[in-house]
């Protein structure tokens, strides 16, 4: 039965948008925690800490997000635990976000001149104190624009959760399209919804970047 595309379909899409937003937030928060730990490992002096973090980042940045989703979705299933698509998606996007955030933050910390570390050490601060009171506050300033930029990448990335059957915005679009068969309307509308979520964030990132004067540096941004 073909239905008309009406306000109720539109309402259904908007409701599914909540899940897109929620998944992004969960992945961002989880990714920040794991990613920060990875950052610390990545900048550590000991090779035993640095190397696993490097490998972790390389693997997540060098493989498709879709494959990561599949591996985690089916991999958890192998452990004998039945997981809902929501759980698998939340775990997968958390890991994905952590790898990218770790790499972004590593760059920001390493952009802080060596003299800052040395100065802090000469004040006899311990490593943790050097990091906490001297380096991180300065790195944080530089880190905000690319982190906001990554949030856009993450929001767009959650559209892939539709492939493992999690009903977020893109999946909802497929459902609506199957019953109304008006793909142009449905997907244009969905694109507009994504745009209205991502564009303000992109603008914010650009503005913050311009304020720091780093907007002339060519920027690589995830595109899924």
């Amino acid at each position, binding site marked *: 039965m073909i239905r008309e595309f009406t306000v109720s379909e539109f309402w259904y899409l908007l409701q599914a948008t909540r899940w897109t937003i929620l998944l992004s937030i969960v992945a961002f928060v989880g990714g920040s925690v794991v990613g920060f730990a990875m950052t610390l490992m990545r900048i550590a002096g000991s090779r035993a800490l640095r190397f696993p973090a490097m490998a972790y980042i390389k693997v997540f940045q060098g493989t498709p997000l879709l494959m990561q989703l599949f591996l985690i979705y089916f991999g958890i299933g192998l452990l004998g635990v039945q997981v809902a698509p929501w759980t698998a998606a939340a775990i997968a996007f958390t890991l994905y976000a952590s790898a990218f955030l770790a790499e972004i933050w590593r760059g920001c910390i390493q952009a802080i001149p060596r003299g800052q570390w040395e100065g802090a050490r000469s004040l006899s601060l311990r490593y943790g104190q050097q990091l906490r009171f001297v380096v991180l506050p300065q790195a944080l300033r530089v880190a905000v624009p690319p982190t906001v930029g990554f949030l856009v990448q993450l929001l*767009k990335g959650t559209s892939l959760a539709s492939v493992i059957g999690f009903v977020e915005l*893109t999946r909802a679009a*497929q459902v609506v399209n199957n019953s109304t068969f008006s793909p142009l309307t449905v997907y244009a509308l969905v694109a507009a919804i994504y745009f209205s979520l991502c564009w303000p964030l992109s603008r914010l990132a650009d503005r913050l970047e311009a304020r720091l004067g780093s907007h002339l540096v060519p920027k690589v941004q995830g595109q899924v």
Partner: protein
Amino acid sequence: MNYVFQFGAVPREFGLLLQGAWLTVKLSAGAMFFGLLLGIACAQAKRARWRALRGLVQAYVDAIRNTPFLVQLLLIYLGLPSIGIRLLPGQAALLAMIVNVGAYATEIVRAGIEAVPVQHVEAGRSLGLSRWQVFRFIVLTPALRAVFPALGSQFILIMLASSVVSVISAEELTAVTDMIVARTFRSFEFYFVATGMYLVMSFAFQAVFAVIDRRLFGRWSRQA
């Protein structure tokens, strides 16, 4: 965990996987080449005197960068037929990838072009070079040289994003893997192998870009 991994089926299907990987390489290379051309054209258009053209290009770049690739792909593959444009999965996939990478390339190339000092252009003009010669030798070449590393990273991201086109069953690596999984039920094993192949491809593309960088731009130092 009492699951027994069975990689035994992998060698039997390896030829098929390689075929898929080859299509991934072809799609990606096509998207990189035409995407770069599109990016250069749009970067130039963004500096045009005609305001409507600048606005149009900016709208294109913003629209692409703030919506998911999956939605763009579905809009092209499912939406375009409603206005009479019917594409095969492979064609739709390539078109979506070109349109997508073109928007990101625009921003990167623009950053490179803006970094070219005005004095260089003036010097070129005063030597009697034609507008095309000035553009080709004095603006574009140094601009591309300056942003080549960023372009390379962006290109690798589109290669990884190409796994998404499996959704419309263009038979690249991910789609082939899906097919094999549906037949053999060895989901984890095959996704694992496919992920490894993507990792190898991203390293291979990195190596190729390093060679191109040396061959094309090696005569000049990176610092403009």
